């Protein structure tokens, strides 16, 4: 018991080799790997949706709406790893109370809230018509169940009283969406570039300190965001196709449900163009990452003695084989080879996500793989079976908790803001809206 009480933070998963200073441990562990990974997904998903809203790339329309909703689901999760990482999580709000602005972390709350409000308001403009239609549909019903009453009131609140869905009003919505998406791009880049700055500005750490870090982070963020959106988009489309084939749920009763061929066409078009953008950003990300390593190897400053050993020997497998080989080069070849299919793109996207995760891992864990004395190494062993609260939150299960949460949230959000709406903005739940209600918003 005495021993347990005095286990130092970091001791449970750090092994020291040769000379490591007494106070050195891997203090930033798996949750700090998850943090840039998750914020990267948020930023990337948003940038993908903005490609449609701002630059008007029409073929991205459906996947754009999808990724916008997904970035909302990811949003609270960007904060989770940070809270799980804090040794005093209940004091987390101090960041908002006494922000100390010389710190790169201090602005997190502000940037995060700014970005969050942009995502939420953009979604509101996109889905306002849907909320209004839902309200009208439910109002038109004579005998509502108590659940439907609840839904009616909930949707009423969501409309914020703006019930006008005339052409002009919707045009205004559309314009607002465009502006918000345009402001959102730099904010999303800032949210993530600034995660890169947190690392890049730690002058004590020879591996982290480079002005390229924020740019590398933004690039890889967009890469991971697009990859995840393609992946989830295809998965949900496959589920829909499966249901269409079997005539399950609404396909059984609703004649207006999209046919199998329609779904297939939409899927291929969206995936093809999104994966092109994925390729462009991947080229940027890999170029910068390799440039950084080449520059360090070429200039050979004092720290290269140990960094060279870490990069070329100790972390060779996780850096060169897992990150660059399996995570970048292999999916790149898979996607540029002629005759690209949706299935091949999906496999490539999984590999890309793995590659970006490994990149975060190699930066966070790799940056702590060597001692500040440059005379020793530290090995990180991810805690798998939790022994106590600390090894849970900074272990495999803590990381999995963070990884699973966005999908649960997405499922919930999708109930309120259905991702798949047809061209008229009528979602599955309002598929059978009475004609009269659609024509005039004043119907009551």
């Amino acid at each position: 018991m005495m021993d347990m009480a005095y286990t130092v933070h970091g001791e449970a998963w750090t092994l020291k080799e040769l000379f490591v200073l007494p106070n050195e441990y891997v203090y930033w562990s798996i949750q700090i790997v998850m943090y840039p990974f998750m914020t990267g997904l948020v930023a990337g998903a948003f940038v993908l949706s903005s490609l449609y809203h701002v630059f008007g790339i029409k073929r991205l329309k459906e996947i754009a709406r999808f990724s916008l909703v997904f970035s909302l689901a990811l949003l609270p999760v960007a904060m989770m790893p940070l809270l799980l990482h804090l040794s005093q999580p209940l004091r987390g709000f101090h960041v908002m109370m006494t922000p100390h602005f010389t710190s790169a972390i201090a602005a997190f709350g502000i940037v995060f809230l700014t970005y969050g409000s942009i995502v939420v308001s953009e979604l509101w403009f996109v889905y306002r018509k849907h909320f209004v239609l839902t309200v009208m549909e439910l109002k038109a019903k004579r005998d509502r169940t108590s659940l439907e009453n609840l839904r009616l009131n909930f949707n009423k609140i969501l409309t914020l009283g703006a019930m006008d869905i005339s052409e002009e009003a919707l045009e205004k919505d559309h314009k607002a969406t465009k502006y918000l998406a345009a402001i959102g791009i730099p904010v999303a880049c800032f949210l993530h570039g600034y995660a890169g700055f947190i690392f890049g500005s730690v002058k004590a750490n020879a591996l982290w300190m480079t002005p390229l870090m924020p740019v590398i982070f933004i690039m890889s963020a967009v890469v991971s965001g697009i990859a995840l959106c393609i992946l989830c988009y295809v998965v949900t489309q496959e589920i829909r196709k499966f249901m269409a084939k079997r005539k399950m749920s609404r396909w059984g009763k609703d004649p207006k449900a999209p046919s199998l061929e329609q779904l297939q066409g939409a899927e291929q078009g969206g995936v093809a163009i999104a994966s092109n953008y994925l390729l462009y950003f991947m080229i940027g990300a890999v170029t910068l990452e390799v440039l950084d390593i080449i520059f360090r190897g070429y200039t050979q400053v004092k720290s290269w003695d140990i960094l060279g050993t870490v990069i070329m020997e100790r972390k060779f497998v996780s850096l060169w084989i897992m990150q660059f080989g399996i995570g970048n080069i292999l999916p790149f070849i898979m996607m540029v080879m002629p005759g690209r299919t949706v299935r091949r793109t999906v496999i490539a996207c999984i590999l890309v996500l793995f590659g970006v995760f490994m990149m975060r891992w190699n930066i966070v864990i790799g940056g702590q793989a060597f001692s500040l004395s440059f005379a020793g190494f530290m090995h990180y062993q991810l805690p798998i079976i939790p022994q106590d609260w600390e090894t849970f939150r900074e272990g495999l299960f803590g990381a999995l908790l963070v990884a699973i949460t966005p999908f649960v949230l997405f499922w919930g959000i999708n109930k309120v803001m259905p991702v798949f709406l047809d061209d008229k903005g009528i979602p599955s739940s309002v598929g059978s809206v009475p004609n009269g209600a659609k024509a005039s918003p004043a119907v009551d």
Partner: protein
Amino acid sequence: MKRRDFLKNSIMVIAGASVPLSALQMVDPKEILAQNPDIHWAFLIDTHTCVGCGFCVKACKIENDVPLEANVSRTWVERYVFTKDDRRYIDSPNAALHGYTDPRIDQGIAGMVDIDPENVGKAFFVPKLCNQCLTPPCTQVCPVGATYKTDDGVVLVDKKWCIGCGYCVMACPYAARFFHPVTHVPDKCTFCYHRIHQGLETACVNACPFEARKLCNIRDVNDPVTRIIMTDRVGILKDEFGTRPQAFYIGLATEVR
């Protein structure tokens, strides 16, 4: 109320309020402290006289409530052994809490290394502690301002406000900070701030049998220790980081990082 009365009353209220406001400014504690800029704490370490007994580490842990068993310490002593065939070994087992009684070098998971005493070229000890930098990177990165530098030059941690993000631990180039196993927030050497304020020496200076450690007020040119720093050739650790350390070393080797 007439407009004239309103204006009159407003002026009176403002004038009345400004009196206590200016009184508040007069008792600003910062100004009072600034009136006494004569103290700035600094540290001098003589590596020639350190024998690696580890008394300083023990005294520090007891004085500052850092559990003896915990594998972290506010101060520690490093052992450097360079062989004649130019191999370099460094260690600091348990932060040198029990001194260096074992001639073998502790290389962590690489095991213990035996060195032939005939082959030893040079060997020495280097005590380390927080450098109380003039431009500390740790206070710069604290997101809530829970760690700060006092006007007399010591970097402290507010244990009750710190959120435990560990950014300061990562930012320190000297690994002077660690997570305290009881308070669960970063802890560090404070030059025994609670003692030096009362005119006492720090615990480690008190415990050192060979006067390898000395505390001084670097603003006082008559202080004998300050004089050594002014007149002798002293070194600092890792000056490339621009942190301007206030712990000075006599006989610092370039291999010490």
